[in-house]
Structure formats: structure tokens, C-alpha cells
């Protein structure tokens, strides 16, 4: 059986607060984005990792999140101009800690359905699982991974890789 898990692109940002993968081939069935994230933020405000598809900055994104902080579990909704992907490690957290984050996007290249994603995140303060929705039928050809806090920048050691998976 042929293997069907292929790297499309990878980035190791040492500054800035967004990474964009353009011209994503439509030849796969699903996409998986694996990130290991830490930012330089030191303020107490939240540091949310998020994504956008095809440069769409309209309020077409929503997500339901289940979160545990080690003592209680909660669930909440998020909606707006980006898709919530989790609270990630920053310079308030122990040095050397990078949040593992996996985004799985199914049937990303069809032009009929809205696009959904399952997100696993392991922040230093929270553990989260998210179900995300982009209310667009457009095929995904560009993905931007970003920090919603514009004052946050990725630090050295951060890695983001996008993989394509073929059903056959």
C-alpha cells in the first residue's frame, strides 16, 4: 500500500506573530498541522493561538472548546475573525516549555461544504480539545497560523509543519 502522509511545508519562526502557508496543493484528502509554540509575551493577558483560511478576515469562524486546568473542566464557545486553536506557552511559563498543538482538517479541498477542524492543544496552563468551523465552501488554499495578541511574537524553538494526507 502506498504511503500517504507527506510534509507540505515547515516553518521555524523566531519572531513575528504569524506564519502563512500559501498555494496549498488540493491533491490531498486531509491536512494536519503540527505546531510546537511559545511566545515572548510576559503580560497576564491571554495568548491565543489561532488560524485563518484563505486570508478570510470576516467573522466566519467558530469553535467549541473543552478545557481542563488541572482542577476543573469547562466548555465554552469562541467565534470571530479567527479560529481558536488554544492558549499556548509564553514567557510566563517555565523556560523550555513549548505547547504541542495539532490541527486536523478534513476534506479541505472540496468546494461544497463548510470546513471543520479538530484541534488538540497542550498549553502549559491548560489542556484543550476544540472543534472548529469555517463557514465557507471555498477550497482551502492558504492557512495562516497566528497569535491573536498582536503584542506576542514567536520565539526561537517554535516549529510549525503542515502535512497532507491522501485517502488513496
Amino acid at each position, binding site marked *: 500500500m502506498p504511503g500517504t502522509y507527506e510534509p507540505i511545508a515547515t516553518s521555524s519562526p523566531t519572531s513575528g506573530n504569524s506564519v502563512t502557508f500559501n498555494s496549498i496543493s488540493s491533491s490531498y484528502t486531509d491536512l494536519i498541522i503540527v505546531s510546537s509554540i511559545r511566545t515572548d509575551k510576559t503580560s497576564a493577558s491571554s495568548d491565543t493561538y489561532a488560524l485563518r483560511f484563505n486570508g478570510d478576515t470576516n467573522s466566519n469562524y467558530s469553535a467549541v472548546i473543552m478545557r481542563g486546568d488541572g482542577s476543573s473542566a469547562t466548555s465554552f464557545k469562541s467565534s470571530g475573525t479567527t479560529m481558536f486553536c488554544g492558549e499556548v506557552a509564553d514567557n510566563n511559563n517555565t523556560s523550555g*516549555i513549548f505547547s504541542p498543538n495539532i490541527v486536523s482538517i478534513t476534506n479541505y479541498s472540496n468546494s461544497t461544504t463548510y470546513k471543520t477542524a479538530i484541534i488538540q492543544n497542550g498549553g502549559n496552563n491548560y489542556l484543550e480539545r476544540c472543534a472548529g468551523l469555517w463557514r465557507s465552501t471555498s477550497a482551502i488554499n492558504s492557512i495562516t497560523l497566528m497569535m491573536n495578541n498582536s503584542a506576542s511574537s514567536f520565539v526561537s524553538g517554535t516549529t510549525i509543519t503542515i502535512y497532507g494526507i491522501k485517502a488513496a
Partner: protein
Amino acid sequence: MAVTFYKIATVTVGSGGASTIEFTSIPQTYTDLQIALSARGTSTALYARAEINGNAGTNYSLKTIYGEGSGGTASQNDANTTYFDRFLMNSSAYTANTFSNAIMYIPNYTSSNKKCLMFDSVDETNATAAPMYMVAGVWNQTSAITSIKFTPNTGNFAQYSSATLYGISNS
């Protein structure tokens, strides 16, 4: 473009059972690791413990979201323990022929940063309640990961328990 999701090794427990399932001499040539574990115990084991590089120091911390099919979910913190212990196992008292399942993902396992990982572990047995864990963990060491060992909290792994280690490259 090259395919980069490789099976490194599989361990399947034989008829005599096994006290551990271990991957040693893990190649340092991949970017990430993934492990799929299917486990059942010979006695009353409820968990398998994972130990990295033979390190038994208090260097393992976990945050868990927990549900069991009824009631609400809960979250638990386990800080500075000597292993990752949330890999569910079906004990010998559970429904026959059922095995727990877990998938663990470890990004950047050769880096000089501390090793952060995630795994989900489930224990469905067609009983009224069955636990499910979603876990984020950190091994508070900067060494590259070269070995991973699973050990039941009591007893042995039963026959047909298995684990497969995969390596994933980003180029």
C-alpha cells in the same frame, strides 16, 4: 514528495504476557514521534506507566481532562511525578477481548527543549461507564528521547497487547 510517516517498531505481547513494552535505541532522524498502544492486563492493572530514557526522577507532569460516559467531565493535575501514568489498561476483570487504546504524539523529540506531548487514552468496554483521558504532559528534561518504556501499575501486559512506534519527518 517523499512520504515521511514511518513505522519504526512494533511490540506484540506473546502468550506468556510481558512485564513491560519498551522501545529502545529510537533513531534520532525524525522530527516527531507517535505511539499507538493497545493494552490489557493479566490482573487488576488499570494504568500503564510510561518512562522516558529510563528516567525515574520527579520530572513528569500531567494535566488531564477525564470523562467516563456519565456525569460531567473533570480535570486533574499531576505534577512532578516519576512517570506518565494515564495510559488506561483494561484489567482482566473487564469485558473479555477488550483492549484499551491510546495515541501519544511527541513533537521535536530530539530538541534541547523540554519535551511536551499529548495523548488520548480510552477504555470502552460496553459497560455502563468507561473512562476516557485527554492528556497534556511535559517531561522536564532537555535530553533527546532515546527510549520509552510502558509498565502496568500492577501485574503484566496480557497477550495481544501491542504498541507501535512511528517516526514523522517534516522534510
